[in-house]
């Protein structure tokens, strides 16, 4: 497998961790209570830690002297390969939890397969991430239930978030050309095959949370090709601010 394909494959996973970590970071100090604030920061820390491992590996693979920070901060928007779901803004806590829940359910299934990758580094990063992401999934599933089966207001709010974010869930399972090459070479995971388990997981939690699965058949995609929503540019302006303003410096 060519390094360039492998790098693109890793971006498809790592960029999700970076962008979701960045979104969660925005909430630090603004959570509904201290315990939740701390837990969400923990998830941000886990995701950013995973991001660093992936990017350090990409830096090594590319062999052009680029660092993890060049990769994180100095690409143009079209080069980020995260799914649209993770860049969606923190409209309210219901959105934060729903976004997390959809991503965690997918992420855990992905890592459970990815730990068997023929690429030892990728396998090791995935293996380490499983413990963290199992916790994320427990956290977001528990909150889906609390919000869905809490008060009338919380039910309405979380259902609103589910209805809005549902259209971004299909993209999680799309396979890019690089994904297919990675699968053929024993490096990557066939995400289409995770779909059934994922759907079951969502149905189980929704049932307990009294949340209705939206009926829409219309979905959004584009993130994996670097075609993002309008939110992405603003997220990147924050993320890249220092590196763009003060190029080529050590921090």
């Amino acid at each position: 497998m060519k390094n360039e394909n492998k790098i693109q494959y890793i971006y498809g996973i790592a960029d999700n961790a970076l962008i979701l970590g960045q979104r969660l970071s925005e909430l630090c100090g603004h959570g509904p209570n201290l315990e939740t604030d701390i837990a969400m920061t923990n998830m941000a820390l886990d995701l950013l830690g995973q991001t660093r491992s992936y990017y350090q590996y990409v830096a090594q693979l590319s062999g052009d002297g680029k660092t993890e920070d060049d990769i994180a901060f100095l690409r143009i928007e079209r080069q980020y390969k995260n799914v649209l779901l993770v860049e969606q803004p923190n409209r309210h806590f219901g959105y934060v939890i729903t976004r997390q829940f959809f991503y965690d359910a997918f992420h855990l299934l992905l890592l459970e397969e990815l730990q068997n990758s023929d690429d030892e580094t990728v396998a090791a990063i995935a293996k380490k991430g499983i413990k963290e992401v199992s916790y994320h999934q427990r956290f977001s599933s528990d909150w889906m239930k609390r919000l869905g089966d809490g008060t009338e207001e919380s039910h309405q709010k979380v259902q609103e978030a589910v209805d809005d974010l549902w259209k971004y869930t299909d993209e999680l399972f799309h396979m890019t050309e690089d994904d297919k090459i990675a699968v053929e070479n024993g490096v990557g995971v066939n995400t289409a095959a995770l779909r059934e388990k994922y759907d079951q997981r969502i149905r189980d939690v929704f049932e307990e949370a009294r949340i209705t699965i939206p009926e829409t058949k219309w979905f959004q995609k584009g993130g994996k090709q670097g075609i993002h929503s309008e939110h992405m540019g603003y997220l990147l302006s924050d993320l890249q601010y220092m590196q763009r303003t003060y190029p080529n410096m050590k921090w």
Partner: protein
Amino acid sequence: MSEKEIKNHGTGQSLSLEEIFEQRIARDEKIEPKDWMPEKYRKTHIRQISQHAHSEIIGMLPEGNWITRAPSLRRKVALLAKVQDEAGHGLYLYSACETLGISREELYEQLHTGKAKYSSIFNYPTITWADMGAIGWLVDGAAIINQVPLCSTSYGPYARAMIRVCKEESFHQRQGYEIMITLANGTPEQKEMAQDALNRWWWPSLMMLGPTDAESVHTAQSMKWKLKRKTNDELRQQFIDQTVPQAELIGLTIPDPDLKWNEEKGSYDFGEIDWDEFWQVVKGHGPCNKERMAARVNAWEKGEWVRDAAMAYAKKQEDKKLKKAI
């Protein structure tokens, strides 16, 4: 035996509860939540511990301001972890405070209505990345000087919380100083950024150690209860003597033309502190007082439906369990 008096059987002398209490403190015994304590002791401790907890929580905001814009992944992760530590400190300080018979909701209420104070330093804005270094180095540095003596304060839960807080604070202080070292050794722009941050944070950091002894209303009582071991002026001197060489070491200049080593007293003489500015900020008119409070109130109010949901859900689960048991 009356409520106020109990007999000391050995000597036949009468000692009031208060006298026994004061003797215990003099013997360096810890006072625990269920022990008798004077009402004033309880109130003073609620005031100080909650002020401290509030400072941790408000202190998350100026630093939180730079998490999304941190210049490298390593710095982003370190800053996130630091701000998270502050939330943790807030959590165990609130818990320590709750042992004195006040609820977290009441404590928040006091903060949100302006009844309770928090450290004024957090009412200054963080306008460059170097402020993350300056806060760690100077603000956490001053906080440690304030807080280390509290590890042996008389109220058990507070003393125990402080041991953990101090360990983490000293890590934060080194981390902040390391940011400053990197900037001071960097490009001219970075060095200028570091010097500018030092210029802006130096005087507020000195003010952080409290009003001069002559103006400090709580000092005498707090010394007696070991809530304080040194006066504000002594602590300030210690902070200056410790920090000036650190600035020199990395080639930064303390923004005080009157700063001079005094051979005779073996410490630094320093310039006049602008106490008018201090009181202006304490009274609520600093650069960010309103923004800090608005951010906290906003988080609390927007979180209400979430907290309500968690309560309602917990109750439903409890009811289900009961039904099953029946």
